[in-house]
């Protein structure tokens, strides 16, 4: 399929992990979508940036640590673009070195420009 024919869909991840299931079920959707050869982006903004925080250890909660999946999302599941918003990181006292995997850090304006290219948003 040519690049122009692909549908551009962006997951907009705005929730912190573990307090609710949104980010976990969003990842389950990302993994499935990767197989369909469309143009899938994921953006982490607001509390969504916490999902990428390094060092998550859920053993005391009895819940699954799904953050490790982000490390292989791009290579194993063909998610084309993973963005994290710079301002949301800063507001939370986080920086790039706190993140579990290498992602594209964009400021709000740049991320908004990416949004303008999308056909559909899936907010989680």
């Amino acid at each position, binding site marked *: 399929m040519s690049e122009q024919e692909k*549908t551009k*869909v962006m997951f907009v991840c705005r929730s912190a992990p573990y307090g609710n*299931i*949104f980010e976990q*079920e969003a990842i*389950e*959707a990302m993994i*499935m*979508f990767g*197989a*369909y050869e*469309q143009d899938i982006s994921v953006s982490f903004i607001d509390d969504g940036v916490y999902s990428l925080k390094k060092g998550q250890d859920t053993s005391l909660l009895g819940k699954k640590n799904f953050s490790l999946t982000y490390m292989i999302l791009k290579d194993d599941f063909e998610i084309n673009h993973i963005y994290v918003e710079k301002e949301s990181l800063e507001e939370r006292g986080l920086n790039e070195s706190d993140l579990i995997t290498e992602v594209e850090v964009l400021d709000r304006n740049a991320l908004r420009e990416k949004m303008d290219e999308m*056909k*559909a*948003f*899936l*907010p*989680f």
Partner: protein
Amino acid sequence: MKFGILIKDGPYMHQAMDTAYNFIVAAMEMGHEITGVFFYNDGVYNRSNALEPPIDERNIMKLLTDIELKGVRLIVCVAAGKRRGIVNKTVCEVNEISGLGQLLDLCIASDRMITF
């Protein structure tokens, strides 16, 4: 225009299903097409076959049957459903249960995708 709909909240607890229903009815009256309604997260509860709301309250099961009869396709995510107990024996229609690929198909087939 063609609209795809994603529902993430359960019935009665949040207003999402009510707003989506009113949106769908209005869109169809205006001659637009609904490509499908995908139920994800707690949205899968909307398709439980056992909802018994008080008689003086709106019946969400009936409202959804109404739009289904008008040709709107309802799709319940199998994975989100299993986790929450919306499975073959508890879902309104067994053949509504399907995979997440259907959500991406809605994104592809619709001019607009809207989440409630």
